[in-house]
C-alpha cells in the first residue's frame, strides 16, 4: 500500500468530475501526530488518477461512477475476472484499463 505520512503528501486528491469526491485535506497538522492516509497514484486508461478512498478495483470503478457490469478491466496488463473485482487490491503505480463495447465492424 502506498502509505505516506500526511505532511509528505499532496493536499488533496484530484476532483476530476466536480462530484466532490476529491477533498481538500491540506495541513498544517499538529506536530507529534502521525496521521497516515491511503494515497495512490494510478494510471487509469492512460491518465493519472488518484482515488480518494478506493482500495480495490471494484471500489475504483464505483468511485469513478462506472457500472462494473458494462465493462471489462485489466490491472497491470492482466485481465481481471468480474468476480475478482472486489478482491483485487490496488497499489501505488498500478496501471488500469477499463474497456467496454462500442460500435465497430
Amino acid at each position, binding site marked *: 500500500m502506498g502509505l505516506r505520512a500526511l505532511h509528505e503528501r499532496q493536499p488533496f486528491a484530484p476532483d476530476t468530475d466536480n462530484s466532490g469526491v476529491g477533498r481538500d485535506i491540506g495541513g498544517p497538522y499538529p506536530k507529534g501526530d502521525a496521521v497516515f492516509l491511503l494515497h495512490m497514484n494510478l494510471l487509469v486508461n492512460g491518465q493519472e488518477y488518484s482515488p480518494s478512498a478506493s482500495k480495490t478495483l471494484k471500489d475504483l470503478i464505483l468511485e469513478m461512477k462506472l457500472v462494473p457490469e458494462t465493462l471489462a478491466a*485489466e490491472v497491470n496488463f492482466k485481465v481481471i475476472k468480474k468476480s475478482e473485482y472486489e478482491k483485487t487490491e490496488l497499489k501505488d503505480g498500478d496501471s488500469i*484499463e477499463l*474497456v467496454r*463495447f462500442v460500435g465497430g465492424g
Partner: protein
Amino acid sequence: MTDKLVIKGIEFGSRLWVGTGKYSSMEQTRAVVEASGSDVVTVSVRRVNIIDRKSENLLDYIDPKKYKILPNTAGCYNVQDALRYARLAREAGISDMVKLEVIGDEMTLFPDVCGLLEATEILAKEGFIVFPYSSDDPITAKRLVDAGAAAVMPLGAPIGSGLGIRNPYNIKIILETINIPVIVDAGVGTASDASIAMELGCDAVLINTAIAGAKDPVMMASAMNHAVLAGRLAYKAGRMQKRLYANASSPMEGML
C-alpha cells in the same frame, strides 16, 4: 427441413451479420440492425471514456439478450494485441465468440495471415469460438481450420472499399476445400454483392460500410436482408447452366 446456420452448437437466426461501426448515432445503429433482420452484431473493444461519464452505452440500444454480440479485435496489428483484446472482450461477460482480426497493413487493412493463424490457435485452445477475418486464399483457409477456427471469414475486398466480391473463384475454392462455415466479411458494397456471395454457397455475409455508407442506411439494411435471403434461396434452388448460344423459351410447335 430447416436451413438454419449452426456453428459450434449456436443457432443463428439470420445469414446476414451486421457491423455497428460508422453510424451517425446509437439510435440509427439500432434502427439499422432491426431493419437488417440480423441476429449477430459485431462490436469493438475500446477504453471507457472516464472524462465524459455520460457517453451512451451501445448495449443500451442493442440488447444482448436479443442479439448475439460478436466482439472484434479491430485495430490490432500483432498477435499480442489481438489476444489482449479478445481476452478483455470475453471478460465483458457475454460469450466466448470473437471476430479475430490481426491486421497486416494500414492502407489495405488486409489480414496478417501468419499472425492470424498463430492467434487463432492460441485462442481456440483457450476455449474461444474464433471467427478469423481472413484473406481469400484457400491454403490460409485450410490452415485456419487446422488451427481451430469455428468458421472462416474471407474478405470479398478491402474493408470499407465497397468493391464487392473481387475473387469469387477463390471463395468458391475455399467453399469446396473446407468443411466449416464460410462467412464473407468485408468489401460488400451493395445488395447484389451480398447475393453473389450467397449464390456462391457462402454460409453468411458480414456487412458494415455498405449499410452505414449508403444514403439511406435503414433502407440498405433492408435491401441486404432481402439480398442475402434471395442469394441463399437461389443457391439452394440450383441455378441453370450457362450457355454460349440461345435456347428458346417459347415452343416452336403451333407456330403459324
